């Protein structure tokens, strides 16, 4: 950190200056490593079929991870994303006969609704996010089951609704386009728009942010609403891509999202975070699933589903410990 300006080179840009940049570097390195590993080891790993279906499916997780990242940057958490997506998928499926736009809007509104309730419970009732969104998770699953009559609801194939999930645009899956658009918007909001500064300042300390004259409650409300909206969008894609609103889907999505966010270097206590690294984090974890499937296909060692969860746990462990080690190495060189 005592570098003179003259020693600045292009390489300098790659030297991490903060833990966040370090985490980003770490996660990108691992993603690239996994890609190379997969490409060398498995035949069709980098086939366009695999890449495109990978993106089509994982766009849902990228969306909820983005919402989760925003919430976590404020120092909160949103456990309701899976339930919200499930409920939104049911609403979208139920409304899909009235046209793709109605289905889309319905799903989005359902998600937004849950997000707004979360926001209200957190800001007005001052209930801790963990509990507020835990309750919202239960309630949205309950509502989803009630609306769906305890079983999956078929979407309408007469309208264009399923195209939202199943079609391509310029040879690229529409869900992936949606996710990319959401991330671009998220990046602009966080890095370029004043609201991003507000989100991060709240994560730094809510009381302080309030004294600094920030509209803390409004921002928090907005962030939970955004997370709900993104989960709703994921729900719409869920319904459209699989042709059904699924009230029991989404279990464990919140943990996937939290892991992605953390692997992307966002700190759970708030105040620090990055949108791009969250996306890389989500891709990384999703790729682990994909690789496990391919590994099983090789037939060299047949991993039972149980070993897969052990491996996923171990992988998470390695990544976070690696990050922690690098961070402390950076601090005391």
């Amino acid at each position: 950190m005592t570098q003179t300006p003259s020693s600045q080179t292009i390489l300098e840009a790659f030297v991490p200056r903060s833990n966040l940049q370090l985490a980003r570097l770490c996660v990108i390195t691992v993603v690239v490593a996994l890609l190379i590993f997969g490409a060398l080891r498995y035949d069709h790993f980098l086939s366009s079929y695999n890449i495109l279906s990978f993106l089509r499916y994982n766009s849902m997780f990228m969306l909820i991870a983005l919402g989760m990242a925003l919430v976590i940057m404020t120092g909160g958490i949103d456990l309701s994303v899976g339930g919200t997506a499930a409920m939104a998928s049911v609403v979208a499926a139920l409304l899909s006969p009235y046209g793709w736009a109605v289905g889309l809007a319905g799903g989005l509104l359902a998600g937004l609704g849950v997000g707004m309730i979360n926001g209200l419970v957190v800001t007005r009732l001052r209930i801790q996010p963990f509990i507020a969104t835990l309750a919202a998770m239960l309630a949205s699953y309950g509502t989803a089951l009630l609306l769906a009559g305890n079983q999956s609801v078929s979407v309408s194939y007469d309208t264009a609704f399923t195209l939202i999930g199943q079609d391509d645009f310029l040879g690229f899956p529409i869900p992936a386009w949606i996710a990319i658009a959401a991330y671009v918007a998220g990046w602009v909001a966080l890095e370029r728009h004043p609201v991003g500064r507000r989100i991060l300042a709240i994560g730094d300390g809510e009381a302080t942010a309030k004294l600094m004259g920030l509209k803390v409650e409004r921002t928090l409300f907005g962030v939970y609403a955004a997370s709900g909206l993104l989960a709703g969008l994921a729900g719409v894609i869920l319904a459209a891509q699989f042709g059904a609103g699924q009230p029991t889907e989404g279990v464990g999505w919140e943990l996937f999202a939290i892991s992605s966010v953390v692997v992307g270097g966002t700190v759970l206590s708030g105040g620090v975070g990055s949108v791009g690294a969250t996306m890389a984090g989500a891709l990384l974890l999703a790729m682990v699933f994909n690789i496990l499937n391919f590994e099983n296909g090789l037939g060299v060692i047949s991993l039972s589903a149980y070993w897969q969860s052990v491996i996923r746990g171990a992988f998470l462990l390695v990544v976070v410990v690696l990050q922690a080690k690098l961070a402390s190495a950076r601090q005391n060189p």
Partner: protein
Amino acid sequence: AELPSLKKKETYKVGFAQTESNNPWRIAQTESMKAEAAKLGYQFVYTDAAGSAAKQVADVNSMIAQGVDLIFLAPREEKPLIPAVLAAKKAGIPVILLDRSVDPKLATAGKDYVTFIGSDFVEEGKRVAEWLVKNANGKTKIIELEGTTGSSPANDRKKGFDDAIKAAGGFQIVASQSGDFSRDKGRQVAEALLQAHPDANIVYAHNDEMALGAIAALEAAGKKPGKDVLVLSIDGGKEAVKAIADGKIGAVVECNPRFGPIAYKTLKRYAAGDKIEAWVKNTDKFYDTANASAEVGSAY
């Protein structure tokens, strides 16, 4: 479009997209599929969707990417797995469905997939009800322990049973709650329901595990399972069949998880160019006091 065909070969690379592995029934199914593949010398690609229909579609897609010859799919749900079936078809890979089917309105056997091998959950519930109607001995008040809310076996086993009971008349379902297909949850729910409805004298559980939990609950409440309260279930695992022999369970409809032999037999028939029927029915046994002791050994 035509159903993709399967070349006749010495060995195949087959995919098996399992739904989940969190209960003995699924484990037995996977074991059977794997063991049979090993016996035949086939390459076996296995995925586990951990209870998520969406992940199962992704799993099927990764099998397609890996270029398997045929996919065995145990669809988690009727509707959401349609895209997987259609994607495989589009990629020229035949699909055989195991133990659950997909929505017949959206995909049909012989056109979109080869066939469905399995039993009929509605039928299972109905068979239990029919046995009950004959053997109730004046017992009428039923507690129903449902499977996981929203899952298709839970919905179908409920429908088959409830409809048949209603048609028979004279019975009353005093409570029907989910026990999540698990012994512990089934026991807890049974404990609560038995307290609230002490007059109940029949317990119908959607699987063995919950039935065994209910037996524990009955015993804790000082009631004699089989005598004071009649217990009925579906699955037919060894423990449950033994419980029939012990007089604790009245009757069990089998739902056999050993799909291996019939699955690969169907594959070979298809490769040989046979015309496959739309539904290859699994013949499910029925256990009650008449045959339980004799059959304990052969139950899965």
